[in-house]
């Protein structure tokens, strides 16, 4: 599927000239130009959108990154930075007239300072590799996306990724101290610092979550935190999803901020149980996983309080992990939820809306209605503690019309998220996927500010064009198409 809209700026790259210029600055093993070699880069984790780039650059040092960006700037060629390509919103999907700048070879941990509790890493370092390197010092890097064995720090920074522990330990934005950034013009910026509150505007906050639109990150300084002495998980099952949702609110109202608080509905547990044998209650409408960490005494104290709240909320069954092995088994099902759905359905489409926790039951009821409306199944996993829902819509890309229905289904969930007081994306980013729903979340004055910020960093709009922030023109078109309120006239037709 070609997602590029008609209303975004057009680029017309002279491919032979681009190749010559890149060959002049990069050794042969750092440059891919043949379609065959380019193919693996045509999409990220959102496989429904694909595009072949003109070239893939695999620089090995910052000097090369600067040279690539300067060249593209001079030639007016779009650049899409790429980490591991696990993104779920098409953020790293190439531009047909552009270059992919892969940071895969920026894979070194440059410094790990256990006393200062920080690590300076290159952007291509995998998320889990940081925690592994810190482990001998009793430290770890807190944000833990489920994709952490593969995804990179550069991608995490660009998406402001979260994980199952971010209610207590924060998102990427709370755990980054400093970035080194190369602008499209090839200028180097140091943003943030190892000391608190760097002078000037908080550009770190602006850059984290900016989806590769403002610059290319070449170095990341992350905070490391001490590993708690112990962690245990309470697993509770409920006969109704509404009860489970209320239990989440009750835990927080009781003054408890658990280390993790996750929910899975019946469709999700049914999919993962045969796969991981976690021992989930398959009769239950929903299960909750609630983790406590700290000293053994602290954990025991918190688990007692959590258990009391869950019992009062009407849990059918409550189990507490009795060993580290059991704790990991309880989590294994949650962590394997995406691949498990991948086993029972040829394709799935993962959504990422956030809603106020108290609207959860309402949202799940609406999704059940949408399953009938669009004739597709949906399993729900939920970072319940922070209101971030991941409905997994199952479809078959080979059945004509199914993807269009899945996309419309997803769009309706996102728009309902906004209507319920939430957001279209909690951690996966807008990318190309949710570009239309940005028109629902923001009005044109705010979108204009986003465009002005983009222009302050990248006046010619060469970094990741067409992503993250829709043009006002595009929103006008989408608004017109939307007059009939979700009831697309020709749902089988491609949108843009």
């Amino acid at each position: 599927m070609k997602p590029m809209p008609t209303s975004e700026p057009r680029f017309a790259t002279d491919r032979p000239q681009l190749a010559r210029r890149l060959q002049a600055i990069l050794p042969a093993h750092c440059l891919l130009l043949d379609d065959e070699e380019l193919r693996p880069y045509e999409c990220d984790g959102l496989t429904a959108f694909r595009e072949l780039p003109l070239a893939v650059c695999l620089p090995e040092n910052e000097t090369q990154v600067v040279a690539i960006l300067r060249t593209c700037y001079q030639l007016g060629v779009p650049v899409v930075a790429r980490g591991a390509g696990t993104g779920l919103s098409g953020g790293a999907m190439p531009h047909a007239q552009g270059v992919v700048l892969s940071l895969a070879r920026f894979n070194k941990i440059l410094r790990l300072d256990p006393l200062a509790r920080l690590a300076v890493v290159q952007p291509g370092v995998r998320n889990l590799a940081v925690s592994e390197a810190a482990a001998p010092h009793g430290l770890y890097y807190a944000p833990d996306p489920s994709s952490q064995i593969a995804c990179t720090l550069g991608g995490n920074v660009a998406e402001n990724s979260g994980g199952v522990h971010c209610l207590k330990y924060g998102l990427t934005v709370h755990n980054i101290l400093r970035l080194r950034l190369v602008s499209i013009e090839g200028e180097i910026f140091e943003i943030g610092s190892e000391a608190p509150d760097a002078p000037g505007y908080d550009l770190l906050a602006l850059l984290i979550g900016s989806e590769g639109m403002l610059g290319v990150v070449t170095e990341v300084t992350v905070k490391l935190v001490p590993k708690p002495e112990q962690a245990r998980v309470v697993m509770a099952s409920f006969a109704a999803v509404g009860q489970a949702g209320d239990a989440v609110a009750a835990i927080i109202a009781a003054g408890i901020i658990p280390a993790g608080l996750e929910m899975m509905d019946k469709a999700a547990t049914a999919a993962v149980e045969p796969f991981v044998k976690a021992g989930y209650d398959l009769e239950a409408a929903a299960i909750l996983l609630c983790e406590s960490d700290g000293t053994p005494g602290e954990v025991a104290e918190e688990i007692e309080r959590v258990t009391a709240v869950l019992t009062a909320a009407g849990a059918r069954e409550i189990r507490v992990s009795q060993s580290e092995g059991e704790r990991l088994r309880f989590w294994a099902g949650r962590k394997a939820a995406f691949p498990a759905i991948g086993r029972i359905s040829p394709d799935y489409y993962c959504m990422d809306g956030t809603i106020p926790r108290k609207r959860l039951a309402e949202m799940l009821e609406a999704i059940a209605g949408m399953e009938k409306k669009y004739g597709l199944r949906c399993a729900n996993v939920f970072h319940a503690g922070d209101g971030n829902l991941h409905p997994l819509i199952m479809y078959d890309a080979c059945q004509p019309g199914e993807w269009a229905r899945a996309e419309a289904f997803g769009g309706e969930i996102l728009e309902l998220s906004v209507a319920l007081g939430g957001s279209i994306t909690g951690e996966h980013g807008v990318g190309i996927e949710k570009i239309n729903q940005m028109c629902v979340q923001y009005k044109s004055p705010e979108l204009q500010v986003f465009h002005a910020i983009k222009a302050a960093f990248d006046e010619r709009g060469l970094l990741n064009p067409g992503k993250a922030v829709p043009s006002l023109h595009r929103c006008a078109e989408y608004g017109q198409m939307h007059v009939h309120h979700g009831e697309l006239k020709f749902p089988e037709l491609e949108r843009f």
Partner: protein
Amino acid sequence: MRLDDLVSAIGAAYACGTPLRLRGAGSKDFYGGMLLGDVLEVGAYRGIVAYAPSELYITARCGTPLAEIEATLAEQGQMLAFEPPQFTGASLGGCVAAGLAGPRRQQAGAVRDFVLGVKLIDGTGQVLDFGGQVMKNVAGYDVSRLLAGSLGTLGLLAEVSLKVLPRPVAEATLLFAMEEGEAIARLNQWGARPLPISASFWSAGQLFLRLSGARAAVDAAQQKLGGELLAEAGDHWLAVREQQHAAFGTGPLWRLALPSGTPPLGLDGLLASEWGGGQRWYAGDQPGAVLRQAARQAGGHAVLYRAAESQRGLEGAFAPLPEPLLALHRRLKKSFDPRAILNPGRLYAEL
């Protein structure tokens, strides 16, 4: 006062190019660069708009006194975890615009870490909404957090939503006699262990350490760390948070923000240090250039925190930015406040 009043005041100033000095309660008039422009008092635009304890957020208008917010949160056993100083009746807008956090900063995070959303009036008088009330939201650039600490130079924060947290169940304060170097070393070693340390304050050979969390965790840490248990430590931490502690004096004051493990700088005039060594206070009669240079060398920066306006104007309150970064600041400023009417010179003379 209504939102429209503020919108028309800024709109009119934009039309005529009149510089405005945004002012909440004026509790931080001592802070930042120059105080230029016609004063626009915004303290009367006040009131809590929404508070949902189980959703962990509060939304209030800019003029709302922090004291009112804290009292409302306390009724539900919650708090602003970054412990902002209130000084003389600080308002929410000024708190977020100045971005000053208190003793819990190193453990809980900075002001910006708790900002969820804002309603902003930009330099043209336009009302803009960014972020929201949910914990996670990555749609669009994170403008709300960018505004924390921007000292009103990008727009008037008319309304802010903040994340709130439960108050810790238990708290204890330990007292140790030790010199600066040892205190810094110990604090950083302890920081690498899973201990519930929520604040530190060192001054004149004494280290105060606050533990917060579950009863069991606080008790266990107290056992491990030793020290002398200080009863009724609440007043001590309040004095630190409000900078009423004798160590802060009343004269001009420099604040050095450093990587926490930085060994003692060996400069005269050290008054106190906080945040595990990440924030150190110096008496204000130091030559600014010496402190700025020492902080920079250590990988940090120095702020002329409290001084006569004339001295702030002369030296600049904040460490100067390298040229490409300053140019970027100018471009951002221009996109929010094209006629540069909002708090000119309050952050940097060039903005």
